[in-house]
């Protein structure tokens, strides 16, 4: 199974993919990616809360 290798050097994450390609990730780029996922999750959490609120009010 093809597997990437990961190392952390000089404050960077360095990924070597199975085809030999290397990608360097800085702290800034990872924080940008994290913020993207947090933003996506924020609305998902809001929608779930809204549905939970509806469910709680739907008493028989």
């Amino acid at each position: 199974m093809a597997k990437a290798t990961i190392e952390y050097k000089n404050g960077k994450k360095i990924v070597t993919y199975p085809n030999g390609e290397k990608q360097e990730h800085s702290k800034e780029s990872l924080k940008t990616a994290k913020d993207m996922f947090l933003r996506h999750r924020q609305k998902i959490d809001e929608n779930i809360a809204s549905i939970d609120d509806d469910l709680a009010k739907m008493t028989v």
Partner: protein
Amino acid sequence: MQLHLKHRKASRIIKRVTEITTDGGLPKTGQTMIYQPGDDGSYQMGYPIGGVQRFIDNGDGTIIDMATGLMWIKDPQAAGLRSSMYWYDAINACENLDYAGHDDWRMPNINELLSIVDHSRYDPAFDLMYFIPFPDTWTPNWSSTVCAPWLDGAWCMYPYDGYKTVWSRISDMCFVRPVRGGQS
């Protein structure tokens, strides 16, 4: 009566679209980097083929997409759509819009909206030469497509990254980027 008028409007759309339709097909994603043979960057499948220019700036505030045949408004703020709004208000704003000599603007469906996403870019995830973003790229653009599993929601797209999401038709406000033409 309103429905009747809308049908007449639709027949005009078909007539106009014949002037700008192409062979059509799924547009390219925008990725040109090859990370692995067989990936998107190595094939770059999609229209336009042969490196033909995809978007045409008409110079009147409108953009033609040669891949889909759709006409877009380059800067919705210049067309008066400056603020985010509820889904119903956004639909009405598009339906009532008279801009660049056209009065048959409408809110795009989710497939149409996602068709302008360039996956090689972010913040915003489309070509700034042809699409002027709203000030906040984390407020989505509405689509006219309702979310089938959750009917309170409508599909929309974050201009930041082109992510398809669902916001509430009841309580959320998003921006809108009108479109006209297309296949029906």
